[in-house]
């Protein structure tokens, strides 16, 4: 091939290279959420109730403890799993049973989830139960929400549900 033709082909090759790099490094666009949708993030860390009762130690048991460790009671450390369920407009949105973290099962239970929902009016119901032995013990939330497009709504918990 003659020199000029070669140079033209090289320029073509480099143009293809530039086009390829430029195009794929920013396109095609990816749609993460639709413009009229909003995001709900459930993010909760909560420790379940301790399972079991504390027990009074006998006198001899206390005697056997080392002097700096003397306590009158022995308490279990294991915590109950935490159950969380969230309904939106009477449809179940999220339900999870989070076990306590840690090898001794004495740590916190955590929840994280993300949902895209249509914006507009919604009715949200949430229940958190942190004592498996006592189903009656529950925290509840029932609320009308007016959600605008692209809003990020966080459902958190601290002594009760918090909506941010």
């Amino acid at each position, binding site marked *: 091939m003659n020199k000029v033709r070669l140079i033209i082909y090289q320029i073509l*090759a480099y143009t293809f290279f530039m086009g390829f790099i430029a195009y*794929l490094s920013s396109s095609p666009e990816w749609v*993460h959420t639709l413009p009229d949708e*909003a995001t709900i993030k459930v993010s909760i860390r909560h420790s379940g109730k301790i399972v079991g009762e504390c027990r009074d130690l006998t006198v001899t048991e206390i005697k056997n403890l080392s002097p700096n460790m003397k306590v009158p009671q022995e308490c279990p450390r294991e915590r109950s799993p935490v159950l969380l369920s969230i309904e939106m407009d009477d449809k179940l949105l999220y339900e999870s049973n989070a076990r306590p973290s840690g090898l001794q099962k004495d740590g916190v239970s955590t929840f994280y989830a*993300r949902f895209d929902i249509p914006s507009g009016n919604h009715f949200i119901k949430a229940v958190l139960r942190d004592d498996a032995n006592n189903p009656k013990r529950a925290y509840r939330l029932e609320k009308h929400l007016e959600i605008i497009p692209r809003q990020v709504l966080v459902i958190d918990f601290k002594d009760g549900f918090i909506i941010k």
Partner: protein
Amino acid sequence: MKSPVVYVRKVGKMLLNPIELLFSKIFTDQANPFFHLGTLSFFFFWIAAGTGLYLYVFFETSVAHAYESIEYLVNEQWYLGGIMRSLHRYSSAAMVVAVTLHLLREFVKGRYQGVRIFSWVSGVPLLWLLFLSAIGGYWLVWDQLAQYIAILSSELLDWLPIMVDPMARNFLNAEAMSDRLFSLLAFLHIGFPLALLLGMFVHIQRISYAKTNPPKQLAIGVSSALVLLSLINPAMSQAPANLDVSVTNVGLDWFYLNVFPLIELWGPGWVWGLLVAVSVLIVILPCLSPHQRKPIAVVDPPNCNGCSWCFADCPYSAITMKEHDFKKGHKQAVVNPDLCIGCGICAGACPSSTPFRSVDELITGIDMPDLPVKDLLKLTDKKAKKLKGDKPKVLLFGCRSGAPTESLEQDNVAGILLPCVGQLPPSFVDYIFRNKLADGVMVTGCCEEDCYYRLGNTWLEQRFAAQRFPHLRTTGAKRNIAVIWAGEQGNKQLAAKLDDYVHTLENEGHEDDLRFVKGGRDE
């Protein structure tokens, strides 16, 4: 039954070969980008590292000001900072393209087994580090894209049972995001590339004379292209991140951020599965492919004088020199069987391989059990005896990875195939001319810059051109030898060059003013 890997490689070759041939035509073999994918990867890395340093000077490591500091470069300093930023992004993209093609090419060409396993397996962490480096970089811009990948990468990490507290909690909303985390990310964006660089040097440890710089022509070409691209189409940030507002559309870098849509489509568990599966598949690929280990080089101490020529030429540093077993004050070559790939380049280097020695049986200092030098000599004599006719007689030496030579055999042309032409001692050519076994000798092999054994064709040519030991000795050999690096696809070109060569020998005679003919398949 053949392993499916063999078929995949075959199909790969069918796709790759025509493209490579086209690029050789356009760029010549010496500057064919497909022959320089590893060195190009290095080159793109250096561009990204250099421009990254510049960006770092102006970068503000805080949630509030990171975005602005990059916008400043792009808008107020477009002529330098803006170009640096674009170069940084585009060279990184070019790097992953080069690395991916490099990986695929080494696989398709069957260059990932034996000693090469070291390079192959050490390439896998490089892939991870490369992607981690790039993803970290996108994060720092703190625009909508960064917000998107922050949320999804934390969800990906949270799938692993390592942390009690979900990492995603850091990106719940604007309030949750901290500067401390941001500094950590900026730190990682230096740490990962440094680890990558270290890994890149480990990657080429087992290779002697590893090239890390592409040929000048290519270096100038690709860097000009990247600068031009940065001017025409500067890399831009997307709208600033705001964790209180959800991300809708993002312009994605599909080179590096391709896992993120997958996380959305499949969920993090399957994506981890895919990432691990692909990595493991690459690592075990050498074991899944059939591999015939070639016999390794063997040293014969009585015939080794300790010149170190083989040591200097071994493409995988498989040879070391030690005190000679019995020749006082001499050295002796030792082959490390784990590193030897069985190419025979050492046998071609050894001065004891010369057929002019007055010995009953030609035993050389370092030799290949599958084709010892004495058998190569017998084969040469036998093939030469068969040459007949009035046309100039030519012995054609080729290699198994280059253009097949059998199909070119005629009455006046005989082909001799070696594992690698680097195994051909130059003294053989002297021997052929001195004893008038043929009128001409043509040597062919892999394309320039693309020797299957890395250095066979380069060393052979340097030996013939008296730039490397051992040299050609006789005038006849120096003048009449023809070297055509035609490559496995260059059959037709080789046939044409052979015809030409026979013609010149016919017209000019082989005594006087012939030249050292050299060529490739580039026409």
